[in-house]
Structure formats: structure tokens, C-alpha cells
């Protein structure tokens, strides 16, 4: 058993050092501990070590996980559980039929009236529809482009900018630190994923680097693809469709399992 100790004593200060390092001691606690820590070489050394631990464990991750796919799984589970509990609590239709009184012939007649439409209204609707069709036909003929008129283009005619990303699946037996090692040694970082199938998007360079020109990025992607393609720890790596327009010969296709 460790004594909780007086915070001003060596024992008390020693026990409180993790929270002095993570910044979660109150001002009153700090006022009690800090004078001792200033005087005590052992505590100062330990505090430096504690801060090292804090820094190492709060260092930004090399691999981050997008919450979307996991959240969708959770909602499926919640919805599935909701449906099951509804099924469990819903009385079956037979029971319902016996509980609800059958409508009388009079009420059945009224309920059929609810869906009946007078013929006059149907004729009116047909007339409006015909007039509308005629108007559309006339307008279409009048606005047909002349042979030399410019062809109408939608925005989607313009190709989307290349995403500069490779899609990758690691071997299933790989641990996270091994996957990080693959990326580090290949000079890549994760930019998206994983999705529901465990596919990550990776890009060349260190995490946070964003200064690549398009031509440089294509070249780097080719190099990265070649490295990952031959790595046995990578199960599958594929350029995102539309990628490698300039360097197609260098990137023959996805590496399959």
C-alpha cells in the first residue's frame, strides 16, 4: 500500500508528480508540492521523466481513424435492436384483428368514399396534362439549337481534379505499429479511412505536408505505389480511379491478393 502522504513531503510530492506533469493539479496542490520539487533533485528528475511520458503519449498519431464507418455500424446495431424490440412488443396481427371491431357496412362505404374521385375531376386533370405536354413539345422544338450553336455542357464534363491518393489494404495479421512502420518506411501517411472494408487512403510525404505540385505528386505517387506494391505486408494497393493519367505506363494496375 502506498501512503497518500503529505503533499509537501517527498512521498506526497512523488505520488503527485504524474498530475504535476499533466497539468491537472489544483493551484493549492501545486503551491504545496512545487517548493519541494524545486529543492529535490530526485523529484525534478522524475518530473522530467513524467513529462517525457506525457509528451510521448500525447504525440499526434501517425494513424487516425475516421469515425464514420464505425458510427454507421453502431446505428445499424441500434436500429436492429430497435426493430427487434418493436417486433417483440408488437401484438400479432391476428390478435389485433380480434381486438379491433370490424367496420360496419356503413363505415366500409364511407371508407371507400375516401379513395373515390369524381369523374369530372379526372377529366380536368387529363386536360391539364395534355395542355402541359403540348406546351413542352412546342417549347422544345422552338429552342432546339442551331447546327452552329455551342453545345450545352454540364459541370460534370470537366474532369474532377486527381485526388492524389492510393487506396491500400494491409495484411490482416499486421498490427497497428507494423502498419505505421510500413508507411514510415515507404514515406507515406494516411489521409483517409479506414472505410468499412478496412481500406485506407495514403499519400506521399509526412503527415501534414501539403506542398506538392500536381506533377511532383504524380511522380511521388508512382514511386510510392511501386514501393508499396512490392511490400509483402501490403495485401492490396490501388491508385484511385482517374489517377496516373500522366504516368499510366508506370502504374500498371492494382496489386491484388
Amino acid at each position, binding site marked *: 500500500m502506498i501512503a497518500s502522504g503529505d503533499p509537501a513531503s*517527498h512521498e506526497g510530492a512523488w505520488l503527485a508528480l504524474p498530475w504535476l*506533469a499533466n497539468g491537472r*493539479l489544483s493551484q493549492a496542490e501545486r503551491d504545496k508540492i512545487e517548493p519541494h520539487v524545486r529543492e529535490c533533485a530526485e523529484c525534478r528528475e522524475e518530473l522530467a521523466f513524467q513529462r517525457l*511520458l506525457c509528451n510521448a503519449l500525447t504525440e499526434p498519431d501517425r494513424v487516425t481513424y475516421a469515425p464514420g464507418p464505425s458510427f454507421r455500424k453502431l446505428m445499424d446495431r441500434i436500429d436492429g435492436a430497435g426493430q427487434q424490440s418493436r417486433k417483440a412488443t408488437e401484438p400479432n396481427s391476428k390478435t389485433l384483428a380480434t381486438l379491433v371491431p370490424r367496420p360496419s357496412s356503413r363505415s366500409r362505404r364511407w371508407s371507400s368514399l375516401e379513395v373515390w374521385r369524381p369523374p369530372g375531376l379526372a377529366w380536368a386533370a387529363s386536360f391539364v396534362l395534355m395542355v402541359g405536354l403540348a406546351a413542352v413539345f412546342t417549347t422544345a422544338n422552338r429552342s432546339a439549337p442551331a447546327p452552329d450553336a455551342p453545345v450545352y455542357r454540364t459541370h460534370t464534363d470537366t474532369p474532377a481534379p486527381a485526388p492524389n491518393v492510393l487506396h491500400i489494404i494491409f495484411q490482416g495479421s499486421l*498490427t*497497428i*505499429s507494423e502498419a505505421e512502420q510500413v508507411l514510415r518506411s515507404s514515406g507515406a501517411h494516411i489521409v483517409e479511412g479506414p472505410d468499412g472494408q478496412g481500406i485506407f487512403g495514403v499519400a506521399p510525404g509526412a503527415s501534414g505536408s501539403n506542398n506538392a505540385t500536381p506533377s511532383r505528386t504524380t511522380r511521388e505517387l508512382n514511386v510510392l505505389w511501386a514501393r508499396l506494391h512490392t511490400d509483402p505486408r501490403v495485401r492490396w494497393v490501388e491508385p484511385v480511379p482517374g489517377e496516373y493519367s500522366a504516368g499510366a505506363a508506370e502504374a500498371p494496375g492494382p496489386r491484388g491478393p
Partner: protein
Amino acid sequence: MKGTQSIDPHTSSESNYRGGSAAREVELIARIANGDRKAFEELYGLYHRRLARFLTRLTKRYDVAEEVINDTFYIVWRKAGDFRGDSQPSTWILGIAYRKARNAFRSSSRILAMENPEAPPPPLTSEESLKTEELRDWLVHALVQLPVEQRLAVELCYELGYSCEEISSIMSCPVNTVKTRLFHARAKLQRLLPALGGIAPTDGGVRGSSRGKG
């Protein structure tokens, strides 16, 4: 040696985050209690990264971490109406996550998979820029050698930046137990890390232990 160096607290992003968002999280939980899925998604997004990082470090497997996160938020969805604000939302959610994680770790098949020793990372280099990153690799390697309760206490304190009282609430144990767990975890890490990377004193003993043990 007398030191006059400043002992400014290490301010983690976690503690900054916690300060500004507790009220928002209370509001989200109240909306979740009324079945608001948008609020649920927002709260999930706020915690997913932290929990995924915390749990994948402990389990080394994202699928296990994801299962624990979703088990946790399944409870949050169902029990949001029971949250009375007696504790911080993050303490409540981490408390649920802690219990789910502990159960997951104790599952025998998983423990075998998780604690299956793997090759240690390469030796620490002297290059300063790499040191923190490599130290983290070593720490992850050392952490799996700690008992589950000590491992979780280390992560809650150093990574997620919780106070001793908050960890005691999350782990449902007395404050002194938290200190004891961290004391032993620190001692073991100090025994492991000098040999691993030469970053801590190698005096053959555990600093402070002679006087720290009561």
C-alpha cells in the same frame, strides 16, 4: 542542485478540450436522451478519435477498439436519460469505456492475442526529432507488459490528462488506489525503459521507491 526552473503544467489538448466543451456535451446528452441522432453523431465524433487512440494503443487492434467504442456508445444512447450531470460528461463516458475495455481485455482469447509478445521496436536513435516518436513505440511496447488496471491508469493520466480524482471516478476506486496503481506502473516503466532506450536513469533501482512506499 537548487533549481529555479518553472514548473508550468503540461497543458494537453485534452485538458483544453475538456474545459470548453463540457457544457456542450451536457446539452448533447440531453438531446440524445430525446432520441436526437444528430446530437449522438456529434458526441460520437468528439470521442471517437480519443477513444480509438487510447484503445488501439492498449489492444493493438482497431477492431477490438471499435467494438469497445461502439459498446460504450450503445450504452450512452440507451442511458443518456439517466445522466444527471453529477460528474463531467467525459468522466461518465470514459467510465463506461473503462468497464467495457476491462471486460474486453479480460476475455481470455483476446488477452492471448493482445499480449502475444512481438518483436520490440528498433533501438532509440539519438536524433532528437525522432526521439519522441520512437519513445512512444517503446512505451507502447512496455505498456502491454503492465497489468490491465495499471495500463489503463497510465493512459488515463498521461495520454488523456485526467486528474487523480477523475481517474478514481472513472475506475470506480479510491484515490489512493489510483496513486498506488500509477506508482507501480511508473516503477515498472522505469525498470523497462532504461534498458530499452537509455532515456531514464539506470541506477539499478526505482527512483523514489525506497521513500515512496508506505
